[in-house]
Structure formats: C-alpha cells, structure tokens
C-alpha cells in the first residue's frame, strides 16, 4: 500500500495541477458570465435614461398598448412626466422624469461597482491559472526552468572551527580574557613575567582572531538559512493558497481517494505533501529516470567572506575581505608549527598589504617569526620599554622619529586594508624600513609620554576587532592600557 501510495504521488502532481487549473478556469468563466449579465443591465439602464429624457417632450403619445399576453390595442400615453418608480422591496414612489433619471443614475453606480469587483476577481483568478501553468512547466516538462542543486557534503566544511558561544556577559571567552588581563595587570616590571605576559597576549590575539572568523561564518550561515527559509515559506504558502482556492469545495483532492467526501484533515496533509511534492517528484525523477526530469545543475558552494566596512575613528574606513581568511590560515599554520619556513616561498606573491606582513618576517634565533605590528613585538627584548631600560635616550629620539614615519606608513596600510589582525599576526609593513634601525619596534611604547601611545591605540586598536562588537573594543582598550601599564 505504501508503494502504491508513492507511485500515486508522482502522478498526482500533474493531475492535481490539472484539477487546479480546471477550477481556476471555472471561476474565470463564472466571472465572465456575471460580467456579461451586469453589462446588459447597465445597457438597459442607459436606454431607460434616454427614454426618460425624451418622454416629457410631448404631453401624450399614441401607442399600441399591450393587452394581455398576446394582444395589443391602440391607446395614448398620458401624464408623461409622472412616473411610479419601484425602489425595491415592494416600495414605490411617484416622481417626475428628472427625479427618476437621478434614481437610475444612482443605480447605475451600484452596477458599476459590481462590475469592477468582478473584473478584479477575474483578473486574479486568471493570474492564478497562469501561475499553475508555470508551475506545471516548472515541475514537469522542460521549459526554461533548470533545477540548481547544491549538495552540502560535510557540515564541517560550512562551519569551520568551533561553534560560537552566545555573547552573554558571562560567556566563557570573555572570562578567559578577563582572567588573562588581570594576570597581566598583576605582573609588573619583571622581564620573565613580561614574557609570559606577552605570550598570553599572543594567545589573546589569536583567540580574538578565531572568534572573529567564527562570527563571520556564523553570519554567513544565518544569511544562507534566512534566504532558504524565505524561499521555502513563499513556495509553501503559495502552494497552500492555490490549494485553498482550487478546493473551495471539499472535493478537491489531488490524491483521488475513493471516497469523494474527503475530510479537511486529509487536505491539510495534502498541503504538506504537495509542499514537498516538487522535491519528491524531482528526486524520483532523478532516481527513476536518469536525468529525464528537470535538468539539474550541481552547484558547489564556496565560502564567501564577508566584506565589512568599519569606521575606525579618524576618518579611516577599512575593509575586511578574504585577506582575513588568508591571514587566519597563515596564522593557523604558524600556530601549528612555530617555524614557518614556507612563508617566504608562498608569500612572495604579494597581492595585498597583508602579504607584506607575511613576507617580511623577523629572523629571531634563526627562525622566521612573522612580525606583529609596530604596536606589538614578539619578545620584550625588542620593545622600546626594554630599550629604555637598556639603551640611551638618544635612541629614543630616533625611535620617535621612526615611529612617526612608521606611524604614517601604518596609517597608509591601515587605510588600505586593515587591521589589527595584520598587526597581530604578521610582520608589519613598517618592518623593512625600521628593521635597519631597530630590532623590533613597538611604536606604542614611547612610554613615558602617554599621548603618542594613546593615539595609536585609539586608531589602531579598534581596527583590531572590527567585526566583533563594541565590548571587544573596550577589551582591547583595556588590554592595550594594561600592556601600557605593564611596560611602564
């Protein structure tokens, strides 16, 4: 029985559509006949009005008066201006020809309204009939419609990385940051501790990166889902609508059950099944007849990266694009193996400023470690802080100038693309220039003077976390401040 049910379904669809079309056509025909009727009425009223206008011209007319059903006799029509008008519902009124004319005019208005309504209904049903025609073409035969399918193989591919936690105040990631921040704050003025602090910084930046990526992917998924659900909704609702219209009487049932008195429960089932019918049918088509049904295009989805425009404080808008993902990838690679010996090879092809960061790496202890931005450094030795503790103030001046220059360069790079992301992970674009002078250059910490420090933070730190909501901005602020304090 189940088998027969299934077989029925694939045939039911065209039958159902046929039935629907029939019903539509019936309604349209009814509308047409009614429209004709009302048009006739209108014409009658028109001729009546003409008669009323000419009637009072003469005092009396010689006419042939009907005498019973079969005879006429000559007579006169008198009192040509006095008319007894039937108002409806057995009410009569005596009035003059002109008053009668007014009454007729009033009635014609009603007739016109009825005509308009009927026209609308007819058009409506005509559209629906056309739509069912299209639907038939779509699901059944060839036509210009092509089914585009996308097979999602593995969920993992869509959602790279972990699922994002809800962004509530007490969600875990933030707690982590808070803890680490506190740790950072607690440690002070100790090289080793600073080193560990630096590592935790790195972790933090890494974590921020990850979350950002996850957010983008999440947004993408939402977008996809929403568009999917929208499409489904409209199609299902349109299906149901058609069913409702086609089946104004209980009898409509594409399934053709034996008993004509099909309960509405079954029709509701049918709606559901009809909703899934196109898919069923297409699948069955694909199964049963190899490609004989609807021509299908198989579509594979590549993850698009969200492009975001961010206003970063001082009139700079940055764009996040694929480079994010690239950076993320490189970062992942870095994390997996600290030595990124491939980086010069793979990234000599510089297509974006981020690539610059990747190309120009620090060589520390023989290992190419990608440079962070000028704001951060991998090891505290290279920080200006430690420099001040070790080196002279003369260097400080140079550094400051260099910082200014590198700062402007940084500005340029930032206005180009982005980001704090680049700062975090890869060698900064400033590095080639500053490399000659200083080992590593964290422009931030022109320590004693808080102002230059604050400026870079204000403009650079926010871009660090563009896609992540405001909270993170604060975090970064707090974080940067924490670092500042540490270094000082």
């Amino acid at each position, binding site marked *: *029985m189940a088998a027969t049910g299934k077989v029925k379904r694939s045939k039911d669809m065209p039958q159902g559509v046929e039935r629907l079309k029939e019903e539509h056509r019936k309604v349209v025909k009814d509308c047409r006949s009614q429209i004709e009727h009302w048009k006739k009425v209108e014409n009658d009223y028109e001729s009546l009005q003409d008669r009323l206008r000419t009637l009072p011209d003469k005092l009396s007319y010689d006419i042939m008066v009907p005498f019973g059903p079969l005879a006429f006799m000559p007579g006169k029509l008198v009192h040509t201006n006095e008319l*007894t008008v039937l*108002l*409806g*519902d*057995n*009410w*009569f*009124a*005596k*009035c003059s020809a002109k*008053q009668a004319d*007014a*009454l007729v005019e*009033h*009635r014609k208005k*009603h007739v016109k309204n009825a005509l308009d309504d009927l026209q609308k209904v007819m058009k409506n049903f005509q559209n629906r009939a056309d739509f069912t025609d299209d639907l038939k073409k779509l699901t059944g035969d060839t036509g210009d419609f092509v089914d585009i399918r996308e097979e999602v193989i593995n969920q993992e591919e869509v959602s790279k990385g972990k699922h994002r936690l809800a962004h509530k105040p007490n969600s875990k990631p933030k707690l982590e940051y808070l803890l680490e921040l506190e740790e950072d704050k607690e440690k002070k003025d100790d090289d080793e501790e600073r080193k560990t602090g630096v590592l935790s910084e790195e972790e933090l930046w890494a974590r921020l990166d990850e979350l950002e990526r996850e957010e983008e992917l999440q947004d993408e998924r939402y977008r996809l889902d929403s568009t999917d659900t929208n499409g489904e909704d409209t199609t299902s609702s349109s299906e149901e609508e058609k069913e409702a219209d086609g089946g104004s009487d209980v009898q409509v049932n594409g399934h053709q059950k034996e*008993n004509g*008195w099909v*309960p*509405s*429960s*079954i029709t509701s089932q049918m709606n559901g099944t009809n909703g899934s019918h196109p898919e069923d049918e297409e699948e069955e088509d694909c199964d049963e007849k190899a490609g004989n049904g609807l021509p299908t295009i198989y579509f594979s989805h590549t993850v698009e990266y969200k492009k975001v425009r961010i206003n970063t404080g001082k009139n700079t808008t940055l764009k996040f694009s694929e480079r994010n993902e690239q950076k993320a990838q490189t970062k992942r690679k870095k994390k997996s193996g600290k030595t990124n010996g491939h980086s010069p090879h793979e990234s000599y092809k510089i297509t974006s400023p981020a690539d610059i960061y990747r190309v120009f790496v620090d060589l520390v202890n023989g290992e190419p470690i990608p440079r962070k931005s000028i704001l951060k450094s991998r090891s505290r030795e290279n920080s200006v802080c430690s420099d001040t503790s070790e080196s002279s103030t003369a260097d400080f001046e140079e550094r400051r100038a260099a910082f200014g220059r590198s700062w402007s360069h940084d500005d340029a790079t930032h206005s180009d693309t982005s980001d704090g992301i680049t700062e975090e992970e890869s060698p900064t674009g400033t590095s080639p220039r500053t490399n000659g002078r200083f080992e590593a250059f964290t422009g931030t910490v022109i320590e004693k003077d808080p102002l230059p420090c604050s400026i870079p933070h204000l403009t650079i730190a926010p871009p660090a976390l563009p896609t992540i909501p405001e909270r993170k901005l604060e975090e970064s602020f707090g974080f940067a401040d924490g670092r500042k304090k540490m270094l000082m």
Partner: protein
Amino acid sequence: MAEAIQKKLQSELEKYQQLQKDVNKSMSARQKLEAQLTENNIVKEELGLLDSQNTVYKLIGPVLVKQDLDEAKATVSKRLDYINGEIQCYETLLKEMERKSEQHREVLSSLQQEYQRAQGQAVGKA
C-alpha cells in the same frame, strides 16, 4: 468484523450527508438575506434622494398603499436592522453546523481506515 465496520460506515455517512444538507440550506437562506440587505440599502439611499412632495407607496398584496416619506424611511431602517440580526443568527448556526460536520468527517475517516485495515486482514486471511 468487516461488515460491522461497513454498516457503521454507512450510518455515519448518512448522518454526515444530512448535516451537509442542513449546512447548504442555511447557506442559501443566508445568501437570500444578504440580497435583501443590499436591496434595502439601495431603497434607503433612493428614499433619501426623494423629497416629501413625492408620494411613496408600499405594495401590500395587490394593493398600493400610500405611505409617508418619513414613515417609509423609518420602516426601511427597521427592516434593515431586522435583516442584520437574522444574518447574525444564521452565521452562528452555520458555524455550529460546520463544527459538527468536521467531527463527523473525522469519525468517518477513522472508520474508513479501520475498514480498509479490516479488509486487508480479511484478504490476508483469505
């Protein structure tokens, strides 16, 4: 077993058909009332177009009885209200009947399923 179900099915079917007829009757009565409603509305409007100089008659049987214009207007208004009330009654009645017919339909479908199952079993046995 199958025959018993069949008999039940038949009786239910008859009841359902009766109910449907009642529904149809009420529907047609309501439609008539609606037509009267529109007609009386037109009469009211047209009476408004007239003035007291015209004499208004009411047809009662074969007789045209003279009426006062204001009286006529009042009468027509009262009739309109009456018709509206009637329509309301019929609406509620129809809803009731719809509900009952729904119930019947469900019963019928379940019975039908049972019957088919029973038939299947009978075939199996045989």
